[in-house]
């Protein structure tokens, strides 16, 4: 698809700003998101290509503004809900439960 991810040659996206000595994971949640790839890949039956396409289908503005592992989370949620492995309602309920615990708001 001619999606937002097809970035080669685009102008205006700003400086690269490499972070010196950056950690592999910037927060523990990134590590867990990373781990979820192999852990779900082995049972959910999606291909890497399908995973990439799920990311390509993100809202384009959100794609550019969100962090890399948030892209992965969007893909997991899409792949697993469309396969009926989890539902959006279950996810929302669990998020609500965990948010109450940690007093964070969505």
């Amino acid at each position: 698809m001619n999606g937002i991810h097809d970035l080669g040659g685009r102008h205006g996206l700003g400086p690269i700003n490499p972070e010196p000595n950056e950690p592999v994971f910037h927060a523990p949640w990134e590590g867990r998101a990373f781990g979820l790839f192999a852990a779900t890949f082995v049972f959910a039956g999606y291909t890497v290509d399908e995973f990439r396409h799920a990311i390509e289908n993100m809202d384009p503005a959100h794609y550019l503004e969100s962090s890399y592992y948030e892209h992965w989370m969007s893909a997991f949620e899409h792949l697993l809900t469309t396969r009926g492995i989890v539902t959006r309602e279950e996810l929302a309920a669990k998020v609500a439960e965990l948010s109450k615990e940690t007093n964070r708001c969505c």
Partner: protein
Amino acid sequence: MLLTPELVPVVTSTGASARVAAHVAPRFRAGDQVLIRNWQPTTHTRLPGYIRGKKGVVEKDYGVFAFPDTHAHGKGEKPQHCYSVRFTARELWGDQASDRDSLRVDVFDDYMDPR
């Protein structure tokens, strides 16, 4: 399958190559001049827009791999050759670009035609 801690090193060190052990005739070989097709699916592709319709030269045939365009949508591997194709900077970016620099893009058989 449940990924257990014991299985992790096996999975990470083995990986999951996209190579397919199928005998598929290549349409191109090193040295061939090619034109990238005006292929614009709304579905998944690994053909980047910036090479579409551009002229290149095949540098190397990497062998037979699963085709992402079908593999992403449950339509099978459609195994085919994948090539390293050379494009000059000027061909892609216009006359203001370097006359010396070049790009190499990995291009599937289905993405190009001879010219």
